[in-house]
């Protein structure tokens, strides 16, 4: 009997106990037979799922367009070709840049303007342990110290999502922006209130990173009920 017929018989469960044991012993030492069995399994799986797989391939693009959105206002600007015009534009741009750099050096950054956080309150929630040091550190803007304590608190209280949010803020203030973003992205639409905060702080983390495109995009996607709508509109106008 050919291998393919034996494989077919094995997969149909049509071998008796002795034949099955012999076949499995051969599989263990014959890589070619094992590969052929694997392929036969894949072929059968393909046939069983064919209709459903094709249907999913059509379903996903239709769903995906609701969740992947191009940032509004993104335009490609063609540079002028004439050298003189280019030089004039470059000089003007340099002057404007210098003006803004001086202004920037003398005033708080956009990030500092918007990065205002409600005070942290852990003590009232944590029975049996004193987390007042974390509170004090956070509320006095000692974010490295607060972050270390909050990391311990979150490890012991994984269900306290508010504390996780504050840990994200500490990471953001410490310039660990990717870690902060990973935390803010963990919040789901099911956690409506906290997600509004997480989204706003996510936008601020992009602002701090100088990534205006993503900052703008997150701001534009804030929920209509977000308490940060007005600040977001204000910030968008300044970006």
């Amino acid at each position: 009997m050919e291998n393919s017929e034996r494989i077919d018989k094995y997969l149909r469960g049509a071998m008796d106990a002795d034949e099955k044991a012999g076949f499995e012993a051969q599989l263990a030492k014959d890589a070619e037979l094992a590969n052929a069995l694997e392929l036969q399994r894949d072929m059968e799986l393909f046939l069983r799922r064919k209709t459903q797989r094709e249907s999913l391939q059509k379903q996903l693009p239709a769903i995906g367009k609701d969740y992947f959105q191009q940032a509004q206002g993104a335009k490609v600007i063609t540079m002028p070709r004439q050298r003189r015009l280019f030089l004039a534009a470059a000089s003007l741009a340099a002057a404007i840049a210098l003006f803004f750099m001086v202004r920037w050096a003398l005033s708080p950054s956009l990030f500092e303007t918007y990065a205002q956080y409600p005070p942290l309150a852990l003590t009232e929630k944590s029975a049996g342990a004193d987390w007042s040091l974390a509170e004090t550190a956070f509320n006095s803007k000692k974010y490295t110290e607060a972050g270390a304590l909050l990391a311990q608190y979150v490890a012991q209280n994984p269900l306290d999502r508010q504390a996780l949010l504050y840990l994200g803020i500490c990471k953001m203030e410490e310039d660990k922006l990717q870690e902060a973003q990973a935390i803010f992205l963990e919040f789901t639409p099911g956690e409506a209130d906290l997600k509004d905060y997480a989204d706003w702080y996510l936008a601020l983390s992009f602002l701090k990173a100088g990534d205006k495109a993503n900052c703008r995009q997150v701001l534009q996607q804030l929920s209509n009920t977000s308490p940060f709508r007005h600040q977001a509109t204000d910030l968008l106008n300044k970006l």
Partner: protein
Amino acid sequence: MPNEPHPDQQYITALCSGNEALIREIYAKYARGVQIWVTQNNGEVADAQDLFQDALMAVYDRYCGREFVLTSSLGALLMTICRRKWFDRLAQKTREEGVRKWEENRYNEEDSEWEAAEAAILQQKRQECLSQVFKLLSEQCQKMLTMVAAGAHSVEQIAAELGFANANALYQSKHRCTARWRQLFYEHFKEN
């Protein structure tokens, strides 16, 4: 002791059954992270959408129809598959630079996530290849193999509908079609 299933296993079950409400939850939960990562790595939003969809198909190909226990987050797996696929695409565009980034990325991934992503991508390639070469079979072969696998009718009924003298003749034809399909797969499949 068997591993406990991760709560995200429900999402894979949803993907396998085409449950739109839960598939939307997968997008709501994980699409933005992928979009942000891709746009930070020289990609466009459209690339992110394409990658995410492709990664979901890889997960489908790897897990649906098989017994499995998901022991880590689907989000982490999807992100790893997307990264791996994105660096592969970069490697195709600008080979040297792409490969360097790919290698850098390789060593930053958790091994378990990386292995799961590799297995999913390999399985997707196998299923894609099987799909492509299946179309090269005769219409009669395609119809017969599909009907037999569906199991909705007895072999005798299928034999009668497709004009075979009896079930034995149908089985012989099935073996020939399967052998041809297998041969086409071996001729066309490239792992890398």
